[in-house]
């Protein structure tokens, strides 16, 4: 229980810091860059967990195909977002900024979809592993 409380307090501290950092960051490019790097880190961690679960036989081939299908959409959305940010950074136009913003929203949306597929599978796998 103590370990859980310690972890929860780390999460709370981190989230509060995140809110302050995001509030303080005036640059759109800076914010977008942070969002994309964080997104990449979280994607890697999530997919690595899914890959491990699959290699341990805790995820079926059918579920693996489902995950890859959605993750493919994420991969495409992420790269589209990076390109949109790059174009905005080169041109600094309002129109390109709107496109970059829309691309970022799409990355988050697709990642949410990916997480909704992977999370229950990994949890199911962890339960099987622990039983």
């Amino acid at each position, binding site marked *: 229980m103590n370990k859980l409380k310690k972890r929860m307090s780390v999460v709370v501290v981190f989230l509060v810091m995140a809110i302050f950092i995001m509030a303080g960051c005036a640059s759109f490019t800076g914010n977008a*860059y942070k969002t994309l790097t964080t997104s990449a880190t*979280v994607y890697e961690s999530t997919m690595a967990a899914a890959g491990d679960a699959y290699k341990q036989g805790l995820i079926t081939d059918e579920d693996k195909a489902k995950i890859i299908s959605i993750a493919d959409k994420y*991969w495409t959305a992420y790269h589209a977002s990076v390109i949109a940010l790059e174009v905005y950074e080169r041109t600094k136009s309002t129109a390109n900024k709107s496109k970059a913003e829309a691309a970022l929203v799409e990355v988050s949306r697709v990642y949410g979809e990916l997480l909704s597929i992977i999370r229950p599978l990994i949890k199911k796998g962890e339960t099987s592993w622990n039983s």
Partner: protein
Amino acid sequence: MELVMIIAIGELILKHGVPAALLILREWDVENPTLEDIEALKLRVPRPETFFRKTTPNEN
């Protein structure tokens, strides 16, 4: 940053603890990313299939 992303970060930290928080904070060190920093983002995300191969998923 979307709420779903913030929640995902929270879950990552719950699972992996302080090292995960430090990793993410280190990435947030870049206040004014250059075009090169943005270009480098293209190499960050491996193809999904690589995570399910027997070899380590560091390919793009």
